C-alpha cells in the first residue's frame, strides 16, 4: 500500500508536462514544507514558568482542504469538469483514460494530470496531440494532494478544455483523505481483484460519486462474480453511480461517456 519513505523531509515531487501545446519541463520543484526546522528556540522574552495548555482543535488536513477549495473554484470558473480517479494499482485507470480521450475526447476536449510514484510511463501512454498531459511524480507519497494537482493543472494549456481527468496514485486508503478539488470522485474496482474489496475499503467507496467495475471482459475467465461485486458496491456505496465496463472490449463505455456528458458544466 503506502511506500515507507521515512526521510523526514518534505516530500519532493516533480511536474512534467507532455503536451504539444505546452511542452516544457518543470521537474523537481520541492513542495513547500510546513515543518521547517525551528530557528526560534532562543526567544527574546523569557518564557513563563508555568506550563501552558493551548486547545487547538485544528484539522491536519486544513492545508490540503484549502488548496482543494481553490482548485475547485478554479475548475468551476473555467467551466471544467474535474474527476479524480482512484483505485488499487493496476485496476485500469490509464487504459480507460487512453480510450476515453481517444473517443469521448474527440467530442469534448480533455486534459489529464497523472500521479505516479516514479515513472512518467502513464503520461507517455496518455499523450496525444490533442490532449495536454501533466505527469506528477510523487516520490514516496502514496497519493496526490491538492497542491500537486494545482501545479500540474497550471502547467497545462487549458484552452478549450472541458474535462480534467486526474489519475491518482494506485492506492485505496490514502487518497480517501485528500480532496483534490474534483467535482466527481471515480473509484475503480477491477475484475482481477476480490469481489469484497468494497467491504475492505469502505471509506473510499463511500466517498465515490461513481464506481466503475472494470475489466469485465475477463470476469468469466477469472471466475470473478460480477453480481456479487455489484451487490457489495451497492451495499457499501448506495450513493454512487455504478458502471460495469471494459476498456478492452468497449462494453459499458457508452454509459461512461453519457455520464461524462451529463456532468459537463454548461459554458
Amino acid at each position, binding site marked *: 500500500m503506502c511506500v515507507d519513505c521515512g526521510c523526514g523531509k518534505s516530500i519532493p515531487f516533480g511536474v512534467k508536462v507532455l503536451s504539444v501545446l505546452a511542452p516544457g519541463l518543470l521537474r523537481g520543484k520541492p513542495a513547500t514544507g510546513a515543518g521547517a526546522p525551528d530557528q526560534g528556540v532562543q526567544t527574546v522574552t523569557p518564557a513563563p514558568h508555568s506550563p501552558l495548555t493551548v486547545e487547538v482543535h485544528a484539522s*491536519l488536513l486544513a492545508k490540503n482542504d484549502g488548496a482543494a477549495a481553490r482548485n475547485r473554484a478554479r475548475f468551476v470558473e473555467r467551466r471544467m469538469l474535474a474527476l479524480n480517479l482512484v483505485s488499487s494499482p493496476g485496476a485500469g485507470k490509464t487504459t480507460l483514460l487512453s480510450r476515453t480521450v481517444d473517443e469521448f475526447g474527440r467530442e469534448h476536449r480533455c486534459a489529464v494530470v497523472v500521479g505516479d510514484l516514479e515513472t512518467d510511463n502513464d503520461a507517455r501512454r496518455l499523450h496525444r496531440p490533442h490532449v495536454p498531459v501533466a505527469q506528477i511524480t510523487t516520490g514516496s507519497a502514496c497519493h496526490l494532494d491538492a497542491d500537486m494537482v494545482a501545479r500540474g493543472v497550471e502547467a497545462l494549456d487549458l484552452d478549450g478544455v472541458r474535462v480534467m481527468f486526474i489519475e491518482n496514485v494506485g492506492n485505496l486508503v490514502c487518497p480517501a483523505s485528500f480532496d483534490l478539488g474534483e467535482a466527481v470522485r471515480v473509484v475503480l474496482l477491477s475484475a482481477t481483484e476480490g469481489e469484497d474489496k468494497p467491504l475492505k475499503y469502505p471509506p473510499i467507496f463511500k466517498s465515490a460519486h461513481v464506481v466503475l467495475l472494470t475489466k469485465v471482459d475477463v470476469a468469466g475467465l477469472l471466475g470473478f462474480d460480477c453480481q456479487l461485486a455489484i451487490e457489495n458496491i451497492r451495499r457499501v456505496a448506495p450513493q454512487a453511480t455504478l458502471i460495469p465496463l471494459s476498456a478492452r472490449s468497449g462494453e459499458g463505455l457508452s454509459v461512461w461517456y453519457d455520464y461524462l456528458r451529463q456532468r459537463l458544466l454548461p459554458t
Partner: protein
Amino acid sequence: MHEVGIMESAMALVQRHADEQRATCVHRVVLKVGALSGVEPDSLRFAFEVVTRGTRAERAELVIDLVPALIFCGACRTEFPGDRGAIFTCPHCGDLCGEIRSGRELELSRIEMS
C-alpha cells in the same frame, strides 16, 4: 506513507502556537486520530520523532487519542461501532450502507508547553 507530511502540518501549527505563547519548550502534543483516517499511529510516532528533531518539541511526548469508527444505520436509526473488521454491517438489520459518523478525524487537539 503520508504520515510525515501530516506530522509536518501538525508541527507547523505547534511552532506557530509556541511562538505566539513565547514558549521555549513543548512538553506534550495531543492528536486526535480516527480509525478510518487512513493514518497509522505507529508511523505518526516515527514521523513525530523525525520532524521534532532539533526543535523545541524534541523532548515532547506525543499522545494519540484514537477515535473509533461509529456508523449510523439509516434504516434502524441507530449508531453502532464499526470495529468488526472493516465491514460495517449493521448488527440489527445487516445493512451495509451506514454513514460514517466518526472515525475520520485527524486533528491537533492540544499543546502543552512552557
